[in-house]
């Protein structure tokens, strides 16, 4: 049974998405439990296959339909994507449970079956992109994920359909670029299997077609992971998306994109190629530095809490880029660890913002006055998430930043280290401004008190509170046990040759 886990991760949510849609048309109540059950099964599959990797110390290979690679499609679970898969499974499960009450608020009842179907399809795409060992299969799953994302975002408020359309234009350009890159690789080598490509590519590292191909690949991935300066689609679409959608998309999609970038740069191509032969990683690092500064400042300029978090996603992508740019073990440890941490931090923050929007009926930072009294747990969750993003130990955000800084210093890239540190400071300004609003009420100002007394929060459902609290606990635990995660998993996930 366990041998099939790696394929079941994709098959189960894919099939259940169709089933949820079909049965949901007759009986809407089955949608939610079926979705949760499918995602829980995915958690078992991904944790199970990751456990196999941890105990045997070797990657798990699965050949689809029994066709051996390089002809057939291969699914591979190794240390790197085992971690990512497990994290996706946890975050998407918690997001689904959390989303239930919000779906009832934000999505008209008739659209519940397609919503849950798209939700599962989205997760299918994310799992597939992570688990596949085939460049073209990755493209297919990327498009499954993207198209379900366009549809989900389009369900949002106000200008959401337009934002989704804009996202689709950008996303399709990115996908085309990726596909072109795959085409170049296929013409040069005749293979699409990642492990196979790694062998075949070595003798033709200096071919210009290959370099053009790599450039197309990276451009496509950069669009999909909202890497500065091709992040333009992200703030609008994630802000206007319904909360029940952004809580799934925002933490996961861009991070899976970052995972694909690491995968392509360090396992499809040899690290020696990406780091030394062509200074690809250094270029990425410098662009990331610019991205961190730009998006941190843009985040500072936002009055809308959710929009601010969207810019923060771009910043966090920049951090991952800086680690790649350092191109050494600590830097890459930081990138991989930050990729994981960020899923949980952003999941937590988007859950908090979703709850605030639903129950406190505001999304602006200036409207948060008195939040700590009406919604103490949410306010505390916001503090935990914010402190982690700033990088206050012992929360997880600190430890990934620590490795990133070590990497930058070891590479003697002082500007990278400076950008990381400056980014933390800017994030601190960002979040303490919010904490002030949440906790300080200017009690001596009667006008303020009167206004604030008018805002009463609805009671939050347990289904929202518990996933949020769990996420906060995970953010703390990931930090405290970072040593174990780095030593037992990430240390092996770094491709040899870095």
């Amino acid at each position: 049974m366990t041998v099939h886990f790696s394929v079941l991760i994709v098959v189960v949510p894919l099939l259940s998405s169709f089933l949820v849609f079909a049965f949901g048309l007759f009986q809407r109540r089955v949608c939610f439990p079926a979705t949760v059950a499918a995602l829980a099964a995915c958690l078992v599959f991904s944790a199970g296959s990751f456990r196999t990797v941890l105990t045997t110390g070797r990657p798990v290979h699965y050949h689809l339909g029994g066709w051996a690679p390089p002809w057939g499609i291969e699914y591979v679970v190794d240390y790197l994507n085992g971690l990512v898969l497990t994290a996706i499974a946890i975050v998407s499960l918690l997001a689904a449970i959390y989303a239930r009450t919000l779906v009832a608020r934000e999505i008209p009842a008739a659209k519940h079956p397609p919503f849950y179907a798209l939700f599962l399809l989205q997760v299918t795409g994310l799992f597939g992109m992570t688990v596949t060992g085939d460049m073209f299969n990755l493209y297919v799953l990327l498009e499954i994920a993207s198209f379900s994302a366009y549809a989900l975002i389009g369900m949002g408020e106000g200008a959401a359909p337009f934002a989704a359309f804009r996202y689709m234009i950008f996303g399709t350009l990115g996908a085309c670029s990726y596909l072109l890159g795959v085409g170049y690789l296929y013409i040069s080598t005749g293979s699409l299997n990642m492990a196979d490509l790694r062998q075949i590519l070595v003798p033709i590292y200096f071919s210009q077609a290959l370099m053009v191909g790599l450039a197309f690949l990276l451009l496509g991935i950069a669009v999909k992971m909202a890497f500065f300066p091709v992040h333009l689609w992200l703030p609008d679409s994630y802000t206007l998306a319904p909360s029940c959608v952004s809580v799934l998309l925002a933490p996961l999609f861009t991070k899976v994109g970052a995972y694909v970038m690491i995968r392509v740069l360090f396992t499809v191509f040899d690290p020696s190629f990406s780091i030394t032969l062509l200074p690809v990683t250094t270029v990425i690092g410098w662009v990331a530095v610019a991205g961190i500064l730009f998006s941190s400042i843009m985040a500072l300029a936002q009055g809308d809490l959710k929009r601010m978090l969207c810019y923060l996603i771009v910043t966090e992508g920049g951090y991952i880029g800086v680690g790649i740019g350092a191109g050494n073990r600590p830097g890459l440890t930081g990138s991989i660890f930050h990729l994981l941490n960020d899923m949980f931090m952003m999941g937590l923050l988007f859950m908090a913002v979703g709850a605030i929007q639903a129950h406190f009926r505001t999304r602006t930072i200036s409207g948060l006055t008195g939040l700590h009294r009406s919604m103490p747990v949410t306010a505390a969750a916001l503090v935990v998430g914010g402190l982690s993003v700033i990088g206050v130990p012992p929360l997880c955000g600190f430890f990934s930043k620590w490795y990133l800084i070590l990497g930058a210093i070891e590479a003697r890239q002082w500007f990278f280290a400076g950008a990381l540190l400056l980014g933390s400071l800017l994030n601190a300004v960002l979040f303490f401004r919010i904490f002030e609003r949440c906790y300080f009420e200017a009690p001596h100002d009667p006008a303020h008190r009167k206004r604030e007394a008018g805002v009463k929060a609805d009671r939050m459902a347990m289904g929202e509170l518990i996933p949020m609290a769990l996420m906060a606990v995970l953010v703390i635990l990931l930090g405290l046990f970072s040593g174990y995660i780095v030593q037992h998993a990430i240390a092996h996930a770094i491709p040899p040759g870095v």
Partner: protein
Amino acid sequence: MTHSPLPLIAVLFPLLGAVLVLATGARRANLRELCTMLASAGQFAAVLSMLPRVIRGQTLTCTMLPLGPGLALELRVDPFGMIFALLSSFLWIVVSVYSIGYMRSLQEHAQTRFYFCFAMALAGASGVALSGNLITLYMFYEILTVATFPLVAHKETPEAIRAARKYLVYLLGGAVVVLFAIAATYCLTGSLDFVAGGFVGGSGSADLLRVIFAAFIIGFGTKAAIMPLHEWLPSAMVAPTPVSALLHAVAVVKAGVFCCLRVILYVYGPGTLADLALWTTLAGVVSCTVIVANLFALTQDNLKRRLAFSTINNLAVIILGASLLTHESVRGALLHLPFHGFMKITLFMCAGSIFVVAKKELVSELDGIGRRMPVTMAAFTVGAAGLVGIPPVCGFLSKWYLCLGALEAGEILFLSVFLASALLDAAYFFPIVFSAFFKPEQENPGAGVKEAPVAVAAPLAVTALLCLSLFMYPDGMFRFYTLGDLAVKSLFGGR
């Protein structure tokens, strides 16, 4: 090296206290205050129980969690850390009693948050004291910084919020610089564990080591309010008086000085600093702070601001003592760290007591207050005399060793800095004492004795008496002298 859970227990007590404070909440205020008291007493007991073993020369360690090669979250108790742990955990008990009296007399708002953050800050401070390496130290240092922010902003007036923002910008900015220094140290040496006498010597080029040292001192020096990075401290005086006591005597700036000394003595070490020719620069910079802070203090009319500049002066005195790198000056610095804590907390509690009873904050309003509040002003006199360095108050002892150290180093210049500082201390403290006791009261003279509530007056009387007894028995209950001696021996080799 002995493994022991005691250091962890000492750090967990305030954390547990913080959780319990939050759980009990404002509706059960008496129970909430009991939690604070129990946590502080428990922490002090845990720290005190480690004392005999540290005196015997054992080093207690407790590895909490591994982080990576050569790196772990680890607590380790050495004599130097013990000094700070004893100071902060004992003063927490005193301040807890005092703040219960103070906050209730003034009917302050958001008291649950206040006690929660106070306990978290103490967890941070004791963690800083007991950390075994730089990364653990940094973790607790950040917890302390963040936990103190709501305390500074406690009044939630625009002024308080502005002060809190300033506090945060300065301290987080400093922390970021420190983080760079720590990461660079780890890259150079592959280790972050404190070693008496330092561990970075010879691991990198002299220039790089100098840059890293500067980053350490700028970063930690922000918290220790070394000029010109001191601006946040006088502004933070808007906070309630127990918070000022926390900032000045128990935790915050003391943690800054403690970290500076850790870097000077346990990361770089006397030998390396002498080789790099860094100590003269450092001593010069802090000497300027010593003198300029005192000149500023002379001009302040607000009592708490005057005390704040006196703190800046004394912190610089401690760092100056350590940077002279002689036996006696380091001994003086190690003694001045706790002694200044006792004296300054007395003075702050006096200032708060005057505010609770008479609602007065300005020095110029204090004429004749000594007749109305004899206990408070007597305690104030003791604290002031100690900071000037007059026997029989403990401040004399530490200043004596500092002066001896300057002579040992053959630095007449720095000796005169110590002496001039004492003179200036007298110039801004004694007029207060004089006008309090010998000038007639301006409004309703002869109103009779009206002291502060017992919960406010008792703690300051206790610390004033301790200041006196620490002069008579510097080795009394806390064994500060022995601990200082052990630390000096481990740093310089036995003598």
